[in-house]
């Protein structure tokens, strides 16, 4: 139960190191290009799941609309890539050359103003962070300052996911509609469709995810992380200790949103398109399930949970596509009822004790468990 509050203690370091080895050495060594690209796709969802650990697991704020943030990042990147693919040269057969093909099909003759900034890569990267942060801030301020929380907040975010899908599909001249933004080719002149580009993008994605994991751990181990837990427990007490609870809720909601947006942008780069199928209610709920399966309090659990559910989804839906949704629902119920701490809880309760025991058998001075616990407590104690 007890965690040393210091950032990146030995245990964290080993665990993150292990994940890094799996992502950077094991997967690339074992998987072919196609499978590795699939893993890259799964890992982009893990950005969302890590954000949900902070927002939902620690802070108790359940958002069923993370797909919206995923879309803000994903579409931002897709708009940049699409503009680069729609040079006058490439689109000279259109009635208006130089604009994305779907706009031309929808009788649009001029690039809309909100597409203009996405001509520039630095601006695009900036907007991929800023727009979701701003959106999170506006929604968060509107909700949390009014003390909307719990189920009401979850329902409102779910409605946002539905609205976003409807907007994207309805405005097909501006967004590519139900097909999304496809036929993406180059990133600043670098062809992202080749096998070697996909291989490189896999590593960029994995390393970025490890950075986000590290940052999330920093937040968790800071006093802010403990305030999030305190808020989940006793919101009023936090208020009467002199904190503005709404500000902390807004912050963590924005942070989770930015993580999700980075994941969305990486999705577009790795998978090569962005579409409303990744935005709505179902994908948003799936992201919550990844987090729950991993263990909603565990940042690393979120990554493993995302991978596990997606591997299962891919293999199951290849053979029994119609069973997948049922399986997913069943999985969620099982996790909530039987393993509320998900994979991380199973690891902690069933695997970790064996490892600890094995390590102790090997160590030279055999100490009794009580003394060992006391020693750990002393090591964890900040007062010593």
């Amino acid at each position: 139960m007890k965690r040393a509050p210091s950032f990146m203690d030995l245990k964290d370091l080993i665990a993150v190191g292990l994940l890094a080895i799996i992502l950077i050495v094991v997967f690339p060594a074992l998987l072919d290009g196609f499978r590795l690209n699939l893993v890259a796709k799964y890992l982009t969802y893990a950005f969302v799941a890590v954000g949900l650990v902070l927002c939902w697991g620690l802070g108790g704020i359940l958002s069923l609309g993370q797909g919206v943030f995923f879309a803000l990042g994903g579409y931002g990147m897709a708009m940049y890539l699409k503009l680069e693919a729609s040079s006058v040269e490439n689109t000279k057969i259109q009635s208006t050359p130089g604009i994305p093909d779907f706009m031309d099909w929808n009788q649009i003759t001029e690039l809309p103003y909100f597409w203009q900034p996405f001509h520039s890569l630095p601006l695009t990267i900036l907007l991929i962070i800023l727009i979701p942060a701003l959106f999170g801030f506006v929604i968060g301020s509107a909700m949390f300052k009014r003390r909307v929380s719990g189920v009401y907040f979850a329902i409102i975010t779910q409605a946002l996911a539905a609205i976003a899908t409807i907007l994207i599909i309805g405005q097909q001249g501006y967004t590519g509609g139900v097909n999304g933004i496809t036929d993406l080719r180059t990133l600043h002149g670098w062809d992202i469709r080749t096998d070697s580009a996909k291989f490189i993008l896999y590593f960029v994605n994995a390393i970025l995810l490890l950075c986000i994991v590290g940052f999330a751990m920093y937040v968790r181990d800071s006093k802010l992380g403990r305030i999030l837990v305190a808020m989940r427990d006793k919101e009023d007490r936090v208020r009467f200790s002199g904190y503005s609870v709404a500000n902390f809720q807004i912050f963590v909601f924005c942070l989770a949103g930015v993580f999700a947006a980075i994941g969305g942008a990486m999705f577009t780069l790795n998978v090569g398109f962005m579409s409303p199928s990744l935005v709505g209610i179902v994908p948003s709920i799936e992201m919550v399930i990844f987090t729950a399966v991993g263990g909603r309090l565990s940042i690393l659990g979120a990554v493993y949970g995302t991978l596990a559910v997606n591997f299962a989804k891919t293999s199951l839906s290849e053979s029994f596509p119609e069973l997948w949704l049922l399986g997913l629902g069943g999985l969620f119920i099982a996790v909530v009822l039987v393993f509320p701490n998900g994979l991380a809880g199973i690891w902690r309760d069933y695997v970790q004790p064996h490892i600890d025991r094995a390590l102790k058998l090997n160590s030279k001075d055999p100490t009794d468990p009580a003394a060992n616990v006391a020693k750990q407590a002393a090591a964890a104690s900040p007062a010593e």
Partner: protein
Amino acid sequence: MTTIGTPPKEYLLAVEGLTVSFDGFKAVNDLSFYVDENEIRVIIGPNGAGKTTVLDLICGKTKSSAGSIRFREKELTKMSESQIVLAGVGRKFQTPSIYDDLTVFENLEISYPRGRSVLGALTFKRDAAVRERVAEVAEAIFLKDRLHDNAAFLSHGQKQWLEIGMLLIQDPELLMLDEPVAGMSVSERIKTAELLNTIIKNRSVLVIEHDMKFVEDIAHKVTVLHQGKILSEGSMEKVKNDPKVVEVYLGH
């Protein structure tokens, strides 16, 4: 307003004409009272008299329907809960309100008055000053051996102490305690009285309590509340012998 003109001297806390109604029911009704600096005021009264509601109003948990609450030149009725805390008002709830999932150390650390903004919390350093203060308070609240246990594992009495400790570390000018010894064993009560006697130095305290022995021990002045109004006010001696008080409160 029941008071005519402004009070001649400067009080730490001046409550005037305070009223709150819940769906027409006036839980606190045109209430006025004043608390001096370094004064220990005890509020007594039967269940449902509105005692807890008065504290709720002062600390901003409940918004008043009418009246004013002035604390050091500041109008508290217009401030948010966290602003009221920053102004120097601390409050202990009737049932222990602590963070079960955090350790005793972390519970106290969160109440340490530094790094209360988002950025401040993110960059907060657990330095020697924090550790020393937490250790000091933990010692005072009899929990120095439990610093690294989760608060969920504490007994009811220990939870009450922890919450008192959280207020202590906050170092408020006005400390409000809602039934601090309720539900405690006799030995815990004695220790708590001892604890309160040490922490009430150099600040004003507003205590709600039923234990008359305890009240006699600490009160400078007693306010008796009944149906949202003041029934009697003054020294313990005076209040105890007030026939109205005997009838509605002390008599049974």
